[in-house]
């Protein structure tokens, strides 16, 4: 009951016009950023960090929460209408969503993604509301050794399990941990790896690293192999009210709920964000569907489930972030550093020390979800326009704002130089397949992990076994072993699935393939329904054209 009172007070704060505007700005920017290729929520939060120093913490955090949620919605629009998604969590959506769009059912795909995201986001936010205070109350009793265990899990899962290459992920993590070492060490005041340079004594600014890697590195990488020519965008039929047929609703509501049930718990455990959740949801929908033959050719369940899972996981990620101070995705890591820049340390004490702030934040998530549904359903046309910005101008703009963001941290030219250097490093990381997220997590979580590790060993008088003998820590390490096993198994399944899908696409006699042969994307007349298309199966082998 206490929590409900707190939440009501949170709503009272978040519904004040000022905070409503900040929340709206957040979801607006977040959606735009999610739609635009080349920028993600992590970079946007990093970029806006210096600009929000003028705001009070509540306003800034409400804005960031809006960006975080908005980015998840926007990503689905891009992957449905453009294929080849930017965020890895949207890959699965692209599988079915883009096929649906090519069949002229783009509107239904967008609608099921948006409504599914809304439902999943709302349910998962309720989950966050109920779960977070309980976990926070319990986590007060965690000892430093337990935190070390949790952080090891976060490092290993984000570093080793999420990318395509275990050792590249760990290398990236190591680089991030090293960047976190640079500067003055907290406990003894020693300078480490500063080369006696004054600008390095305070450490390397998270904003510079995140913007450098995500914006400059990404822009350089895209520039090095830019796809020239017009953007192959699939237009959406008008009239959003008629987007989803009764049949679409019937086929969507169960995947929405299942996606939520899969996404939220996976987001909650420090085993790495939304990608795993979307993939699991896709696999289970495929297994349970009555329309198995449509999978790989535009099955609506394959959009509804993963999109719901994606958003539910995004809310789930906030549980360890708020209650333990443990970020499990790059965006969460940067939101954590935003908290820290206001002198607020997320963790068990957050709910007792800053109840007004944290409940206003949670309330703003409910409000943001409603705003996003409105922004994404009737206004999708605007976002589609954003996708058509000529790429030279888009990337020129990204780079200009990146330089501005770096400069605005301290108004020091040297920061733009550091930004450029980090950007060039980011380019090579990207070029040689090193994931960026472990680096950001290492940079932000590394110093915290070191502090906890040293505290733990101080308490145990240097006895290393103390790190493993506390019950919770022991459970964590056992779980870690299970997660590694499960992760390797899942990855094998995922690559098998991808191979199967590629094979299915190659040997395709479906309606969708027929449509692809007949019309260029978007050229299909709107009065031709899918049921009108008669697919003649070639008798001996396929058309070898």
């Amino acid at each position: 009951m206490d929590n409900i009172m707190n939440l009501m007070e949170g709503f009272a704060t978040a519904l004040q016009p000022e905070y409503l505007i900040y929340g709206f700005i957040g979801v607006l920017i977040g959606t735009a950023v999610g739609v635009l290729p080349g920028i993600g929520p992590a970079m946007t939060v990093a970029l806006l960090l210096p600009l929000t120093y003028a705001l009070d913490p509540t306003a800034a955090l409400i804005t960031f929460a809006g960006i975080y949620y908005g980015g998840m919605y926007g990503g689905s629009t891009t992957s449905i209408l453009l294929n080849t998604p930017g965020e890895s969590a949207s890959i699965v959506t692209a599988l079915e969503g883009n096929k649906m769009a090519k069949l002229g059912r783009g509107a239904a795909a967008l609608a099921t993604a948006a409504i599914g995201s809304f439902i999943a986001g709302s349910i998962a936010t309720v989950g966050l509301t109920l779960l977070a205070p309980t976990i926070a109350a319990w986590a007060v009793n965690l000892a430093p050794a337990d935190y070390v265990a949790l952080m090891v899990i976060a490092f290993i899962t984000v570093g080793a399990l999420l990318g395509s290459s275990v050792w590249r992920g760990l290398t990236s993590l190591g680089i991030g941990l090293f960047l976190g070492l640079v500067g003055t060490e907290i406990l003894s005041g020693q300078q480490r790896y500063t080369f006696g340079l004054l600008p390095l004594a305070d450490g390397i600014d998270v904003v510079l690293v995140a913007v450098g890697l995500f914006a400059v590195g990404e822009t350089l990488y895209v520039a090095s192999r830019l796809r020239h020519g017009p953007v192959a965008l699939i237009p959406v039929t008008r009239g959003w009210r008629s987007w989803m047929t009764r049949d679409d609703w019937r086929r969507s509501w169960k995947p929405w709920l299942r996606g939520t049930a899969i996404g939220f718990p996976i987001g909650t455990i420090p085993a790495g964000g939304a990608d795993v959740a979307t993939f699991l949801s896709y696999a289970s929908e495929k297994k349970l569907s009555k329309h198995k033959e449509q999978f790989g050719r535009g099955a609506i369940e394959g959009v509804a489930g993963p999109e719901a899972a994606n958003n539910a996981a995004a809310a789930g990620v906030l549980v360890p972030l708020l209650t333990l101070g443990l970020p499990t995705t790059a965006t969460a890591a940067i939101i954590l550093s935003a908290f820290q820049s206001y002198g607020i340390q997320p963790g068990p004490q957050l709910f007792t020390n800053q109840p007004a702030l944290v409940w206003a934040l949670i309330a703003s998530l409910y409000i943001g979800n409603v705003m996003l549904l409105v922004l994404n359903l009737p206004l999708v046309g605007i976002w589609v326009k954003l996708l058509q910005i000529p790429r030279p101008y888009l990337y020129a703009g990204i780079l200009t704002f990146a330089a501005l963001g770096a400069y605005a941290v301290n108004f020091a030219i040297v920061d733009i130089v550091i930004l450029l250097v980090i950007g060039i490093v980011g380019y090579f990381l990207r070029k040689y397949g090193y994931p960026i997220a472990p680096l950001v997590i290492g940079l932000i979580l590394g110093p915290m992990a070191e502090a906890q590790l040293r505290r733990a060993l101080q308490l145990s008088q240097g006895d290393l076994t103390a790190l493993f003998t506390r019950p919770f820590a022991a459970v964590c390490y056992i779980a870690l072993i299970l997660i590694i096993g499960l992760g390797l198994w899942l990855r094998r399944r995922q690559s098998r699935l991808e191979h199967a899908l590629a094979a299915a696409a190659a040997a395709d006699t479906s309606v969708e393939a027929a449509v692809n042969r007949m019309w260029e994307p978007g050229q299909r007349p709107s009065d031709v329904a899918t049921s009108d298309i008669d697919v003649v199966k070639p008798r001996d082998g396929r058309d070898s054209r």
Partner: protein
Amino acid sequence: MSAPTTPAPGSGPARAAGASANRSRIGEFIFAGLALALGVFVFAGAFAIRLPAAGTQVGPRVFPFLVGTILVVSATMVIVGVARGKVAELEEGEDIDDSARTDWVTLAKIVGFVVAHIALIEIVGWPIAAAVLFGGVAWSLGARRWWAALLIGLALGLIVYVLFGGLLGLSLPSGPLLTWLDPLLRTLRG
């Protein structure tokens, strides 16, 4: 004057593909080698960290040793992997042409414009430096009319300058050409 996209004469597609695969492998070795060197440096550098006089169990050196170890081990494993033919799997992106070869000329141009931006901020002020950056990068990426890109960049620079200075109270340097904007900012700030 658009970005050069045509491959160098004399390199057939097959030859180009083979050569670029080889070259990217050398690049992978160099990059992983640098990561390995960083690991060695972190490890060796840890000895240079002064220990506080009061002997605590876990000093400021322990974590650097760990980080150095992680870097050395994982970079070595990457090198071993590349040597066995496990080249990087690249992420896809909306605007990335997987079949294109790395366009170093465009990259050099963009880096050059960022450097120019850095050099110009304090001489001509932020709005004009931003216009140079925006226009230059758009032109490097193949925008058809460079002057349009420059004008858009200038408009963007001025809008950001006024918004920042006027509403957020963050003063970007105006430079000698735009001092006439300052009274406007003062009135905006109220």
